[in-house]
């Protein structure tokens, strides 16, 4: 029983850290540009597809493929920011509608190019670790370590580098940040590209465990929205905390209650949290004042 609980917990943390990697990009783009970017899920899908194509057709090491995929998605995010999102910041709805159009374009272009059939990527590790009576597939452990390391690195980047501080300053107050000499347009690009990279890596990692389809991005996207709001809009630590919370709730719920209702547990947490803390777990407190 005890080992069962630990295993479920590890599973939850694994899924939670993947969700959190997607949510970080969403929360930052929303915090900085005010755009609820539905196309973020496509970064996840494209990351998985490029990794798949490179590893299977060129027989390259998974990590190299991962880097190529991350770079490609960063470039894509950069181009999208330059071409579309840059012109959609004055109204929440314009950005949202444009991103919906982009979802249609990207999703169906992927389906047209690579066909909508599910694909499976061979795991990098095939062994199973046995520690203290637990049996953990190495692949799952690998995915968990990489995604946790990724989130940790990003957090440190936000806390200690100059660009990271600029991003946080802009999330707090855009005008003040720009008065302090922060070039807001370049920070936007950085945020878009880095968010894309995080999502692409999460997608590639996800692909080593689950099926790859052109529509695989929609579930992490929705979870990403849930986490973004659950954690408090624009708050990266909030998104991480919410990711781990929802991930564990889902894995415990589906292990001990009902597996079919898996997606529901996150929503219950979301609803209850928002009714008690209307601005999310780590969002600003109190009512808006005039």
């Amino acid at each position, binding site marked *: 029983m005890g080992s069962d609980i630990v295993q479920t917990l590890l599973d939850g943390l694994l899924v939670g850290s993947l969700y959190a990697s997607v949510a970080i990009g969403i929360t930052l783009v929303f915090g900085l540009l005010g755009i609820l970017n539905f196309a973020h899920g496509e970064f996840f899908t494209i990351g998985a597809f490029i990794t798949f194509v490179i590893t299977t057709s060129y027989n390259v090491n998974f990590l190299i493929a991962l880097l190529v995929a991350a770079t490609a998605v960063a470039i894509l995010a950069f181009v999208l920011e330059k071409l579309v999102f840059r012109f959609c910041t004055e109204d929440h709805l*314009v950005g949202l509608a*444009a991103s*919906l*159009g982009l979802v249609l374009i990207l999703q169906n272009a992927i389906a047209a190019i690579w066909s909508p059939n599910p694909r499976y990527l061979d795991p990098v590790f095939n062994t199973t670790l046995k520690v203290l009576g637990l049996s953990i597939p190495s692949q799952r452990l690998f995915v968990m370590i990489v995604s946790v390391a990724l989130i940790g690195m990003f957090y440190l980047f936000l806390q200690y580098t100059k660009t990271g501080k600029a991003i946080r300053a802009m999330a707090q107050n855009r005008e003040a940040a720009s008065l302090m000499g922060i070039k807001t347009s370049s920070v936007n690009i950085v945020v878009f590209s880095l968010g894309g990279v995080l999502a692409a890596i999460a997608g590639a990692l996800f692909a080593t465990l689950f099926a790859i389809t052109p529509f695989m991005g929609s579930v992490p996207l929705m979870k990403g929205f849930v986490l973004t709001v659950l954690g408090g809009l624009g708050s990266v630590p909030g998104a991480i905390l919410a990711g781990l919370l929802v991930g564990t709730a889902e894995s415990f719920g589906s292990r001990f209650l009902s597996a079919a209702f898996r997606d529901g547990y996150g929503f219950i947490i979301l609803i209850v949290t928002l009714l008690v803390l209307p601005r999310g777990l780590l969002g600003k407190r109190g009512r808006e004042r005039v």
Partner: protein
Amino acid sequence: MNRAFWIILIVLLLVGLVLPVLPMNDYIMYLIILVMLHSILAVSMNLLIGYTGLFTLAHAAFYGLGAYISALLTMKGGLPFWESLIPMLLIVAFMALIIGYPSLRFTSGIYFALVTFGFGELIRLIVANWYDVTGGSQGLRINYVPFGSREGYYYTILIILVGTMLGVRWFLRTKIGRGCLAIREDETLAESLGINLLKYKLITFILGSCIAALAGAFYAPFMRFINPDMLNVNMSVNLIGAIFLGGIGTTFGPLVGSIIFVALPEVLRVAGTWRLVILGATIVVTVMLMKKGIVGSFSKGSPIMIISKKEMVRGTKKQVAKKQTVEQSLPPIE
């Protein structure tokens, strides 16, 4: 604005009445009905998003609920289809009340969107997992036929669509409707003017959700098959896309958006898998060029002008007259 509304509506109604007489194949008829059902949904969602500023993502859930409840009442409850509509609307109104009260009481804006998203997905998951009653993700086959012919079906949907549009227009002129417009413009100001935010929002939310449920109830016998995908949040998101594309907060915007969203992919069928890519590109380009949506960019006034200029002038004149009489009754200032 007012005259333009009636002219467009009457032209559309005439075209709508004549359409089934023209020789056309079943497929086009099917498409037109689909567009009209989508328009009813879009018009009702526009009431919430465009006129009241309530960013709901549970709209598709209510649409699906309407279809399921009406189908279950008819097939398992033994009611005739038409009689199933009233208990269905009562159940949906009650559910909208249960969901709307806490959501509207405690959250607003983007948080409200996500809470309704959560509720909507919960409803979808319950429908998808309650095998004994709903048939689960396999869906439900509909075996009743409320209409003798496709024309009868067509005209009923047309009446509901026109009725919804007129109803929304009428609603926005009532005290509550005007209150909703004020809420959308500035919640704090509206509240300070004595508008009961929660009550007005709740009434609009229930009304909009019931219209969506009605559209769902008619969708079920039309498609002869329903499944939990109807309740998917993607449907709500697509509706927002359609409303925005057509022009948010405009009378005919939801109609134009629905036509593009439903009909364009069918017209582009020759392009195969790429047709949705073309639709996506159309949306992105339109949105970037016309930020108020298609209808919003063409109409001269601001998209919020539901009350005609004449009426506003009349209102101002009344106020001016009132002010003058008040001034006259005051003693002159020395």
